């Protein structure tokens, strides 16, 4: 019953909050064209991830040996690889897989790291110590080597790449959430919620967590780029995604062998796209930080 009563208030609040946020977003984009550029790039990546297979001019998997290793031309915009597959089509179609790995791993670590961190920051004590030591242990390894190890141990699948990427990012999320929750632990509104008769877990979820979310969203955007790079890196060294599936990392790995013989385009274009994707998410994170940063809300 009480949940029913909370709903309209929550809706009204989110509606008011949303329109204010939108107004502020417009202001930030106008003030900072680079953020607008990154939003544009993001939309472009989103479109190719969703509609890629229907938009591309060639079948990304169909080999055509008569057209192998052709330089970029009007017919093959990014050229063709050693099996005559169209690199442009493969780059576009690969967006979906790379985005899926990045999104899923970031979502996973957001839930795991966010919850662990908020609980550690709010309760302190042994939860804090356990979360802190687990984070330290993960941070003690070179992160990419750790990810390699996890994928090698768990098995060579896309799911395991997602899990490995999530694990190596865990400390970033846990520590951020911990510090944000920790400074709010003794805030006046948390005491007030206790006086209203809220139980501790309830305060954690309804009072503290929503206030930690904005910064976590920024962190998500910033780690998206890293997650894409990590997935591509794992594929590059032959872990995770297997040929002939189009994926940026593998494509760079395959093309690397041909650079010496002058076929630069095979590695260049997927690499460039990868760079652009990481670039886009990092800028997006900067823009988001400006949007949620109350200092900028004059």
């Amino acid at each position: 019953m009480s949940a029913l009563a909370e709903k309209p208030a929550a809706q009204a609040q989110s509606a008011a909050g949303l329109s204010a946020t939108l107004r502020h977003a417009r202001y930030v984009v106008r003030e900072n064209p680079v953020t607008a550029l990154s939003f544009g790039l993001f939309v472009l990546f989103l479109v190719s991830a969703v509609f890629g297979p229907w938009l591309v001019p060639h079948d990304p998997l169909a080999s055509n040996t008569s057209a192998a290793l052709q330089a970029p031309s009007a017919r093959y915009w990014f050229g063709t690889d050693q099996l005559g597959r169209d690199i442009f089509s493969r780059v576009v179609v690969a967006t979906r897989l790379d985005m899926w790995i990045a999104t899923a791993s970031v979502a996973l670590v957001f839930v795991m790291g966010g919850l662990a961190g908020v609980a550690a920051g709010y309760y302190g004590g042994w939860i804090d110590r356990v979360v802190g030591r687990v984070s330290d242990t993960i941070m003690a390894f070179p992160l990419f080597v750790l990810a390699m190890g996890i994928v090698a141990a768990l098995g060579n699948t896309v799911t395991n790449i997602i899990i490995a990427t999530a694990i190596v990012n865990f400390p970033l999320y846990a520590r951020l959430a911990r510090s944000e929750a920790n400074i709010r632990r003794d805030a006046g509104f948390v005491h007030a919620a206790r006086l209203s008769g809220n139980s501790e877990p309830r305060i954690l979820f309804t009072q503290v967590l929503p206030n930690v979310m904005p910064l976590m969203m920024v962190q998500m955007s910033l780690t998206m780029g890293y997650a894409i790079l990590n997935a591509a890196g794992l594929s590059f060294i032959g872990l995770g995604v297997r040929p002939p599936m189009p994926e940026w990392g593998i494509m760079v790995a395959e093309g690397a062998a041909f650079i010496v013989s002058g076929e630069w385009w095979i590695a260049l274009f997927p690499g460039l796209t990868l760079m652009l994707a990481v670039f886009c998410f990092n800028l997006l994170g900067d823009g988001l930080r400006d949007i949620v940063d109350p200092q900028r809300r004059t």
Partner: protein
Amino acid sequence: MSTDLAPPLLEITDLTVEFATRRGIVRAVQNVNISVGRGETLGIVGESGSGKSVTSFAAMRILDRAGRIAGGSVVYSGIDVAAAPESEMQDLRGREMSMIFQNPRAALNPIRRVGQQIEDVLIRHVQATRATAKEKAIAMLERVRIARPQERYDAYPFELSGGMCQRIVIALALACKPRLLIADEPTTGLDVTTQKAVMELMVELTRESAMSTILITHDLGLAATYCDRVVVMQKGAVVEEAPARQIFSAPAHPYTRKLMRATPRPGAGLRDLLPEDAPQEGAPQSPAAQARAGEPLLQVENLVKEYPRPSAASFAAKLLGRKGEDKPAFRAVDGISFEVRRGETLGLVGESGCGKSTTSMILMRLLDPTSGRVTFGGQDITAIPARDFAAHPLRHKIQMVFQDPTDSLNPRFTAARAIADPILRAGRMGARDEVRARCEELARLVGFPADLLDRLPHQLSGGQKARVGIARALALDPDLVVLDEPTAALDVSVQAVVLNLLEDLKQRLGMSYLFVSHDLHVVRLLCDRVAVMRGGRIIETGSAEEVLERPREAYTRELIDAIPRPPA
């Protein structure tokens, strides 16, 4: 006056400052004219948002990036501040004009020894060489009356009290013997006795070297006590300018009169703080409340809260598993006893660190005491651990209004949601219409406009946020409300309204208040009885009149004497 003979040191003419915000350009200061003569102390008084700080920031050209001087001129002894190159300004700041900020701890570098920070300024402005800097820094510490300056030279800001930090900031500001000192709320957040010491030191040092001072404050009493001339600002414009004595004896502008009226002072009652045209009638006392008045509601017996002191053992000794000799635990609350009767307001007074906040946290059952007993309505509430108290029926009967209205509201909850929170948790009402109706009723009770109920805290003013906090505390008809400096973060005119509201509500609903504060004037207005705390103990109790007019303890007298008193 000297200003008639010599050109003023700082002349601000027709100054307009604009800030670029997402809602367009906002004029923070408009056509302001201020001049400061050599050796003169000028007070700029105004409430928050009056543009008093922005004016002084413009004078030093340290506006933040969104702000700019849009019109008028600032001339400092012949130099046009608005047009001067940045390198020249950097040279001026610190050497010619310097500033003291509101929060001394934030103004000091936390990881540098205070002596070194003074040296930095001296060396930057070529007032000392590396060889002589230390000696000069220690001399500076001596001038601001820091005891044992040789030792304090090596102290970090966190090792010093708030008052000491402010002395260091003053030492920093005066190190290069500037000719103009701007003090922006230098004593806000300090205890009254510390405030007195800091202000007197500042005045003495500036007089000694014939320095000009601008004192920016919201406290008319403070400005009138320590300044030669006072400028009153409202909404970015100067509304009145007069010698300090005159502004008190014959305030000309209605806004100045309103400010003066709202300032708690000896001889003024609670109703006297409101503007003359406000309705004067108090709320009728409910008969039920009257019948029960006088019965004891809350009894505190021998309450003690101890905190373990950090071990004295050195880091190396700890590594080897050796323990230092155990120091006795720190007693934040040291065996206090008092009672609050029904329908009564008890004031708990003391300076920061005296244990009054710890006491109120224990009474609110947010903290467990080390020993002692708290009986509420005949039931021992210390028997219920703090962590289980949230689910206890007595939870609703003891509520609190917090010190900072902004900090005590969840920034993501609307006003209605904040007020409804205790109602929803108590589960007394089911239907959403019923909860909403109760919220509206409470809003009416505290004078909060019902059409603002769906706003978020950052869309409300300070006074409105305070009302939301009060409505939330009243939502479950509590018997005892702890008021923890409920008006410390509010402007005086808003404070006057909120204090009257609290008194009306008490009359109407028959609650008891425990009023925790360091401001004796405010305590006198609201409280029936007063308990003075020092070092975790209650040193004096009695009726408000008795304690404030005829204090028995020297410490109480010291507290009363430290309140700035404008020249009569």
